[in-house]
């Protein structure tokens, strides 16, 4: 099984390399080698993360740091978030990783101000607790079908809004813009509990995240 995952990864990576080296405008008068190196570099440049996010809550850590890519006319965004789960009643703090896909259907310019407003953000994210006490699927020691769920991997959905302040070029130091956002989200386990019980209300399973995004590129 590990071998097949490895094979798939290699195929994906080589396809990515081919795509990156083939992508771009028509050849200029550059020598073929220089042209290809240029294409190669610009391909890799696309992979440079474009922003940094600082965030709290939302089932992604009490304090979390994210980075990622915006694309598709800034309608789409893919985050990679590292979060800290404090100790509380557990005997140790833990770290979680989140892969998050966001979609912003609309962007509204607020008058003549430097602010834009995105009235809706929709997101789907997968969160993984990096700790040995949690498993992706039940361990071999259990009989078949003993636990049907994963304690390590959470599937989450979120809805929110975002305000973005454009920094004028003359005053830019490192960032093009700063955004402030909030999002209400919930996870698979909470939804499972709520849909089968009247006792658990819609509001009981909502969690909030607050964050700041610094757009670098």
């Amino acid at each position, binding site marked *: 099984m590990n071998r097949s995952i490895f094979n798939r990864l290699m195929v994906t990576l080589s396809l990515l390399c081919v795509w990156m080296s083939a992508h771009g405008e028509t050849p200029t008068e550059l020598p073929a080698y220089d042209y290809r190196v240029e294409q190669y570099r610009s391909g890799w440049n696309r992979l440079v993360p474009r922003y940094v996010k600082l965030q*709290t*809550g*939302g*089932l*992604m*850590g*009490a304090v979390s740091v994210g980075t990622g890519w915006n694309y598709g006319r800034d309608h789409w965004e893919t985050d990679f978030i590292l*979060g*800290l*789960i*404090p*100790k*509380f*009643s*557990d*005997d140790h703090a*833990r770290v*979680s990783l989140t892969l998050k896909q966001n979609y912003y259907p609309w962007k509204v310019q607020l008058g003549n101000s430097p602010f834009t407003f995105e009235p809706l953000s929709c997101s789907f994210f997968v*969160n993984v*607790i990096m700790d040995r*006490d*949690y498993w992706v699927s039940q361990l071999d*020691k*259990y*009989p078949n079908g003993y*636990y049907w*769920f994963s*304690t390590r991997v*959470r599937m989450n959905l979120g809805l929110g809004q975002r305000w973005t302040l454009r920094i004028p070029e003359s005053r830019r130091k490192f960032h093009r813009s700063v955004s402030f956002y909030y999002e209400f989200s919930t*996870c698979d*386990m*909470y939804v*499972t*509990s709520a849909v*089968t*019980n*009247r*006792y*658990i209300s819609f509001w*009981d399973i*909502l*969690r*909030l*995240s*607050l964050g700041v995004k610094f757009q670098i590129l």
Partner: protein
Amino acid sequence: MARMRIVYLPKNRCRNVVWLLLLLTITSCNLLESSPYDARVTGDTGINARNVARIEKALDGKSSFRFAFISDTQRWYDETEAFVAHLNSRDDVDFVLHGGDVSDFGVTEEFLWQRDILNELKVPYVVLLGNHDVLGNGVQVYRRVFGEENFSFMAGDVKFICLNTNALEFDYSNPIPDFSFIKAQLKDDNPAYRRTIYAMHVAPGDEQFNNNVADVFHLYVKLSPGILCGLYGHGHTFAEADKFGDGIIYYETPCIGKRFYLMFTINAEGYSYEPVYF
């Protein structure tokens, strides 16, 4: 006519107060949750110890009493709530014994939701540790909300020995069942201690039990002063079995989703039980 006086706070101080209030509301309702397994316990804790004290005080010197035995209430919040309403409408029950599995996923919020429902009971209740309660960091949350996973209490002249028997969850790295705990219980020289009931989440013979020592475990059960019976849950159905062929009966109470439980009546002669539908 009295004139209204408006006190203006200095601007930055006012802003600080607003921020502080906002921060307080957000943190107090746990909206900004870091993980479903955050182990952040808000509200009531140490329930078993407090309720054990209530049971021991109320039944001190008695040899007859009645208790409801429920188990496996995980993700059956509505049914658990219905059970609590039903039990509160009776006034002939002294306490409730919960056989474990208050949580399904081991998620922190599940322990708190169940606690808040069960706290509505008029009579005291105690909760054992179930295998689902151990998942993730559930056992740490269980300890904080309910208490130690092995505990005992006196109800009149009967000692209830409540044990963690979820051996499979602990990879044999912890002594489960904990014989040193059982031995210490049997050495108890309390003159009121005449009879014994064992309560556990998983019975001997189940795949979750450490069956290598099932016979040894039962030997201790048999050695216990005035042994009455064994109680367990886990299987989600009702069962009654003389598991070791020596007349000591183990009773399984169904999950709360079946909407019935076992009501045990203890008197000087012994015990009896009946299934109660709600």
